[in-house]
């Protein structure tokens, strides 16, 4: 049943995020092409008749950067609205009468939302590469040999990466995405406890939970940092500065991830409880 839920959830929501991502790429391509052309003309001596192109280029570049923000924001907002619509509006009557468990309903929605936020992050990165690549290519200032050299340098940098650390970083990023999705799920579910103004309470709950969890995480991190400094006081007086700073940052990030993991568990269990024991659809 979980597979079916995921498939239908995906089917019901792919259009809008896909349109937003397509718009982002269109803006990246157009602004990249005009920027490359502008750089080329500038380098080869700009003339008055190129001003219109320059204005158009400026507008397209601004549009691209606006689209970067709009795409991420738009997808996040769309996911929130879609979740609310499927769970707590009229459509919730169908969702909650399916012969499946609350766990299955929530997990299917969480998986699809995490996938879309990941796709959005990848799209933002890729659109940046497309934009940059088109500017470099269009400007005509980089020879194929230089491009090959850049690619070789990137390959060399990648070969020196510690993939264990990279995997840890990626896992941490994935945890961050899961946390942001569960914030939506938890806040919307909490809003259902109100007898009126449920959407308003969901928004208030979102910011409330966010502030509360951040405060707790900060307090725990500060406490950890204090302990760490005290236990490393001997080393601190030494000269191993950069390594020490790196270890400290890693420790803070690790504590943050642990707090996020705890937050995810609390938000998920709270949502399951509300949807199975305290559900009161209007």
């Amino acid at each position, binding site marked *: *049943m979980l597979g*079916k839920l995921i498939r*239908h959830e995906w*089917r*019901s929501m792919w259009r809008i995020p896909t349109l937003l991502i397509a718009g982002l790429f269109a803006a990246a391509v157009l602004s990249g092409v005009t920027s490359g052309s502008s750089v080329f003309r500038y380098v080869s001596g700009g003339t008055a008749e190129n001003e219109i192109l320059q204005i158009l280029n400026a507008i397209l570049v601004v549009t691209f950067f606006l689209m970067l923000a709009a795409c991420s924001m738009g997808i996040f907002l769309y996911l929130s609205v879609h979740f609310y619509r499927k769970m707590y509006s*009229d*459509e*919730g*009557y*169908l969702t*909650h*009468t*399916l*012969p*499946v*468990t609350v766990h299955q309903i929530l997990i299917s929605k969480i998986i699809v939302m995490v996938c879309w936020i990941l796709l959005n992050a990848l799209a933002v990165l890729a659109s940046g590469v497309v934009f940059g690549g088109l500017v470099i290519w269009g400007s005509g200032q980089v020879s194929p040999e230089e491009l090959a050299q850049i690619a070789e340098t990137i390959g060399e940098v990648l070969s020196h990466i510690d993939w264990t650390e990279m995997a840890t970083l990626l896992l941490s990023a994935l945890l961050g995405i899961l946390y942001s999705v569960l914030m939506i799920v938890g806040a919307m579910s909490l809003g259902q406890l109100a*007898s009126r103004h449920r959407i308003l309470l969901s928004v208030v709950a979102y910011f409330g939970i966010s502030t509360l969890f951040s405060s707790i995480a900060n307090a725990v991190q500060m406490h950890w940092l204090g302990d760490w400094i005290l236990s490393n006081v001997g080393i601190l007086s030494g000269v191993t500065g950069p390594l020490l700073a790196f270890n400290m940052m890693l420790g803070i990030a690790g504590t943050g991830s642990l707090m996020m993991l705890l937050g995810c568990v609390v938000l998920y269990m709270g949502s399951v409880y509300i949807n199975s*024991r*305290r*559900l*009161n*659809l209007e």
Partner: protein
Amino acid sequence: MYEEVNDQINEYANEPGQNQVYEYPNEPERELVRVNDLTKVYGKRTVALEGVNLTIPRGRIVGLLGPNGSGKTTLIKIMNGLLSPTRGNVWINGSLPGPATKATVSYLPERNALDLSMRVEELLDFFGDFYADFSRERAGEMLRSLNISPKDRLKSMSKGTREKVQLILVMSREADLYILDEPIAGVDPAARDYIIRTIIGNYNSNATVLLSTHLITDIENVLDEVIFLKEGHVVLQSSADALREQQGKSVDAYFREVFAC
């Protein structure tokens, strides 16, 4: 357990001021729904249901009748697991509302619960995927009889046609219990006839149809049993024939008498 709950219902029914005419089945195996001391309070003061006790047997068309605000929809939503009771519980096929009961209950809400951006064929896939008792053939036949194309999107349909599509999906299941909340409210008389014909023609003799409405005239003839709800209390449960015989008037006429303003 059945004896215990039956005793509670008897005690409640025999209390002074209660005028229930309970006709609960003697054989527990014929019993499909049991509502036990069900109370629902919205907020702190709004009592929608209070101490409701009921049993509904298999193989009947039961009218859940009462004026607006009497608690019909609240009772139905609790039976479908969409509302949490304040006190008491509902048993369907011996289980509390959950995945097991949802697999055997086919529910038509009073509002449109379908995604308007979906095509009819996508809805058929959806119901087919989740409900093992869904008959795509039966749904297809009913849709063809109404000239509704599976390619049509719900948002391109009139409100009445959407309601018919929803009813077709619900009645195309081979369920044990069909719960239809106000299926004929807000539709024209021709559509009402279609809806009533669809209900009668598409349920098996072992299943029960629980039909909530305040428009009794149109459905009186199809009802085997009636339950009157008033201000969150069951004031009567009886077979329709027995009621007509005892009162010497139609169910509709008696309803108007009981609920006269």
